[in-house]
């Protein structure tokens, strides 16, 4: 399919659902939809001459970011006239970027069919790894040649200029000659007299490896076995060739390595050794070649040794770690929080491309509107006479005080917050008159910290007491629900798009923002689907079962916490040091790490509220799951302090999950004899 056909197809369908991998295959499409906002903070290091490991949960945008290091993408960008060209690329040393997807090219299969066996050498992992080493070196050589062929095209003068490559050097015959005759290849390519011929020879060699692994042949040809290369040496040759082409710039060779973490999942016996082979390349710290690896949050760091040695790759020394989580998950101080702009930009680009929206005002906020707690509150208890139902857990006298205080200005918010506050005061032993003057003197619209922390749990309780499903709408709410994960953001927008379409409503041509109930129903579907997808993911059933036990237990706590004493109990916190002690603890930690990597849980480090206690890690369900389970989206106050063994039982046990503790000591309630008459203001 041509780029034009592909563009046409994309325009006729849900603009939020294009696979990120589709965008990567199509450089022109990538250029249109790429958002520069993702290049912020640590992410800028991707374009510096360093080895970089980019980590983040599944769907956080690692691939989209790293794809920008590929020459094919940049060349296309330059050809199309540099619209939306990321400024950072003019500020960094240029780079000649090639890539390898370790599973697509079958690198992960090495070791699964024994080469040592075909040589009658019994079990010999050294032989398997040396074969894998040659394969990866040759594959990168193949990609290198393809990139050279690309920059030799007439239409590539723009990218040549950016690279600092002189046209004369690129077109020189000696470039090919020097490469082909370099001793690193063991004279294997000596006969190649054209770039196309060389490409074909390398391709044949790669297919020979594949044919052996695929049982099409029973041995490796001697001319290949006898000329195996070490990838560090091969890459150094290629890196020097790039440097030589650049007359005045220190252009480096960048290698983007994808699917590193899948090596151990798909190759139980040799996957770890294959990772060590990659680690060896990083450890080499070649001055001309830099590696860029993308990995899910906790999938990097499990195997950091290099081959044939206990030496390890060291952060800061051998590579830099860029954690997209730190950029995209909002911390309490909001410093460095760039995700909001990033999401808005991504959504806008998708719309502009598919709907041809040129009007800058017609962005997602104009279409989806804005959420506020007060707007949401109006959806519950349309009949004001029923809002009394939210005054829960207090004695009749306090109920009367609350009703009398607000009279016709009553809202379910005021009732719920004042009853919660009153309950808390009662638990502290305050008298009725103190409570009454407190309620009368309090302005719940003040949005002080006490109110701010409790608005969301209050809304959950109000919706529950109104026997209504909670309402979700507005761009700001959708950004919150996506929890710093761009894939989830697109998932939500695409469900809204589909839902609107099914109702015959155009997403982009409403007279006013899309109906809140429509948005809310679509968001519910998005939440349910995110939960369901675990069932078809690798190891997903365990995660699915666990969230189905933990989620409702958390929601139950929040709903029944009428005093709103623990608004932070939508998550739990564990002492970090306790996670390393004992088999159960390690198993539970492994499970939590897996959930974070797969965007099922979010994690954040925090200091304990207890003095002298060590650091802790807090975990919350991914916000997109909040609608399904009825949990707050915003994280405020302290989460529930759980023990690691408790968490182990939640995940691996069979009993009910009891979340949080409700055994706070209560001071006795003072008996009150005065009665307050019921008003009759109706």
């Amino acid at each position, binding site marked *: 399919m041509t780029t034009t056909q592909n563009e046409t197809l994309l325009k006729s369908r849900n603009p939020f659902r294009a696979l990120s991998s589709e965008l990567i295959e199509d450089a022109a499409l990538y250029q249109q939809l790429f958002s520069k906002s993702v290049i912020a903070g640590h992410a800028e290091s991707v374009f510096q001459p360093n080895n970089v490991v980019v980590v983040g949960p599944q769907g956080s945008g690692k691939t989209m970011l790293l794809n920008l290091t590929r020459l094919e993408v940049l060349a296309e960008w330059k050809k199309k006239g540099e619209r939306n060209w990321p400024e950072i690329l003019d500020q960094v040393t240029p780079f000649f970027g090639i890539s390898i997807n370790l599973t697509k090219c079958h690198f992960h299969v090495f070791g699964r069919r024994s080469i040592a066996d075909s040589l009658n050498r019994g079990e010999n992992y050294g032989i398997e790894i040396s074969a894998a080493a040659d394969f990866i070196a040759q594959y990168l050589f193949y990609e290198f040649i393809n990139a050279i062929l690309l920059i030799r095209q007439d239409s590539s003068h723009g990218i040549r200029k950016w690279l600092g490559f002189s046209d004369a050097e690129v077109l020189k015959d000696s470039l090919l000659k020097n490469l082909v005759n370099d001793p690193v290849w063991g004279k294997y390519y000596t006969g190649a007299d054209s770039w196309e011929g060389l490409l074909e020879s390398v391709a044949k060699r790669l297919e020979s490896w594949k044919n052996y692994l695929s049982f099409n042949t029973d041995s490796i040809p001697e001319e290949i076995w006898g000329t195996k290369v070490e990838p560090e040496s091969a890459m150094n040759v290629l890196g020097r060739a790039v440097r030589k082409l650049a007359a005045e710039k220190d252009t480096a060779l960048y290698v983007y390595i994808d699917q590193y973490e899948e090596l151990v999942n798909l190759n139980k016996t040799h996957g770890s050794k294959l990772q060590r082979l990659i680690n060896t390349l990083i450890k080499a710290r070649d001055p001309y070649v830099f590696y860029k690896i993308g990995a899910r949050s906790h999938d990097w760091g499990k195997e950091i040794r290099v081959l044939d040695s206990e030496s390890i790759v060291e952060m800061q020394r051998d590579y830099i770690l860029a954690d997209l989580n730190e950029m995209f998950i909002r911390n309490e101080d909001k410093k460095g929080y760039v995700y909001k702009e990033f999401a808005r930009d991504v959504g806008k680009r998708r719309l502009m491309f598919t709907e041809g929206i040129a009007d800058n005002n017609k962005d997602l906020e104009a279409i989806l509107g804005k959420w506020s707690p007060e707007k949401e509150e109006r959806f519950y208890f349309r009949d004001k006479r029923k809002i009394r139902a939210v005054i829960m857990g207090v004695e009749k006298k306090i109920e009367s005080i609350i009703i009398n205080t607000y009279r016709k200005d009553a809202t379910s918010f005021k009732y719920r917050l004042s009853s919660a506050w009153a309950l808390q005061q009662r638990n502290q032993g305050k008298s009725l008159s103190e409570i009454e003057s407190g309620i009368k003197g309090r302005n719940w619209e003040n949005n002080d910290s006490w109110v701010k922390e409790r608005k969301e749990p209050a809304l959950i309780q109000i919706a529950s007491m109104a026997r209504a499903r909670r309402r979700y709408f507005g761009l700001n709410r959708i950004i919150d629900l996506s929890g710093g994960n761009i894939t989830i953001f697109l998932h939500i927008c695409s469900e809204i798009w589909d839902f609107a379409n099914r109702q015959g409503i155009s997403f982009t041509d409403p007279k006013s923002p899309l109906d809140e109930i429509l948005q809310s129903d679509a968001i519910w579907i998005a939440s349910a689907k995110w939960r369901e997808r675990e*069932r078809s993911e690798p190891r997903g*059933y365990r995660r699915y079962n666990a969230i189905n036990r933990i989620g409702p237990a958390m929601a139950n706590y929040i709903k029944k916490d009428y005093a709103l004493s623990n608004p932070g109990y939508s998550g739990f916190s564990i002492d970090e040091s306790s996670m390393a002690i004992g088999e159960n603890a390690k198993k539970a930690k492994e499970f939590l790490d897996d959930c974070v990597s797969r965007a099922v849980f979010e994690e954040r480090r925090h200091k304990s509220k207890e003095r002298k206690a060590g650091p802790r890690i807090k975990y919350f369900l991914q916000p997109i799951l909040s609608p399904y389970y009825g949990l707050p989206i915003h994280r405020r106050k302290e989460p529930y302090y759980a023990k690691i063994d408790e968490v182990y039982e939640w995940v691996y046990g069979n009993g009910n999950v009891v979340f949080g503790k409700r055994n706070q000591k209560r001071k006795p309630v003072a008996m009150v004899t005065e009665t307050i008459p019921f008003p009759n203001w109706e």
Partner: protein
Amino acid sequence: MRIPWGQSRSIANAFLNTSGYLVVGCLSFEERSLHIPISAKKHFNHCSVENILLRVETKEEVIPDYRQRAKEIIDENENKLKDMNVGFKPIPCELLADENYLFHLYRRIVNKYNTGTIIVDVSSMPKRYFCFILKKFMTSQDTRNIIVTYTQPELGGYADPQRGGKELSACPRRGEALPAFLSPVTKKANRVVISMGFENLNIESILRDNSSCRDIKIIVSYPPNGRYFSRQWNNLKRIVHECFGGSHNFGRDSIEVISALEVERVYSILDKWEKQSDGLVLLPYGPKPHSIAMAMFAVQNGAGVYYSQPQAYNPDYTHGVGNSWAYVVKWDGIKCYNRTNR
């Protein structure tokens, strides 16, 4: 491509006569896995028949964990065969066997048994096993004759979650090429062919890995009842929705409806689609005869065959024993795809 096929008994009568043969099957929790060994005992007592039955189980701890129940049913089935005096050699095998393991199993069979004529019963055999075994025997000079058998469950015999049953399988691994069916490294195919099944099993991971294949072709099987048809179409709708943004360029010529029992027709369609493209990537999620066709095609043409292997199989996957079919994929050393006359 010509492939004689029909009811197992008829094919056996026509081809096996007095010669001895080896049956390689799978002893599973499905009742239909016993059909061929029992039939061979009943109807071909005059031949020298040896039965190798792979007992494929998983050691991996997965949820849902059907291992105990599956083991109990397999043990019962094993005892049934013994009670009927059906001689067989059970070989315990690991579900997630890698290429070394599969090759070792193949060599063990070849070294110990006469593999001149073999019957491969794929009824209950996982794809990573039967595709590998078929490829090795098809390309072996020593194996002159291969008949593949497939026994259906009884009518309506598949578990149906929509009707109170559990799903057929769960806990799929990330999709990857089946052992011995890697796609070319440098020549990129541009067309994916999906044989539709009832469940989608992480098929998105394969479509993501093959996103250079913009053209998708679908084979939907024509099944014995409408309920199976609707399950396939619902599955297709789910895939289109999740993977292709709700729509894709599925013209009339992108979907073929083929009998669930057909091998030859599927092979022909693949051949036609291959000639119109830069290469195919095959996804055998549908009925086993379609998977046999895909495996044959891949052996002949070097296409990649991708699958996301489930790690948990519902012990109630099927019930009962239906019709049994046999396909002569190689005879007198001539492979079916090299045969132009019946």
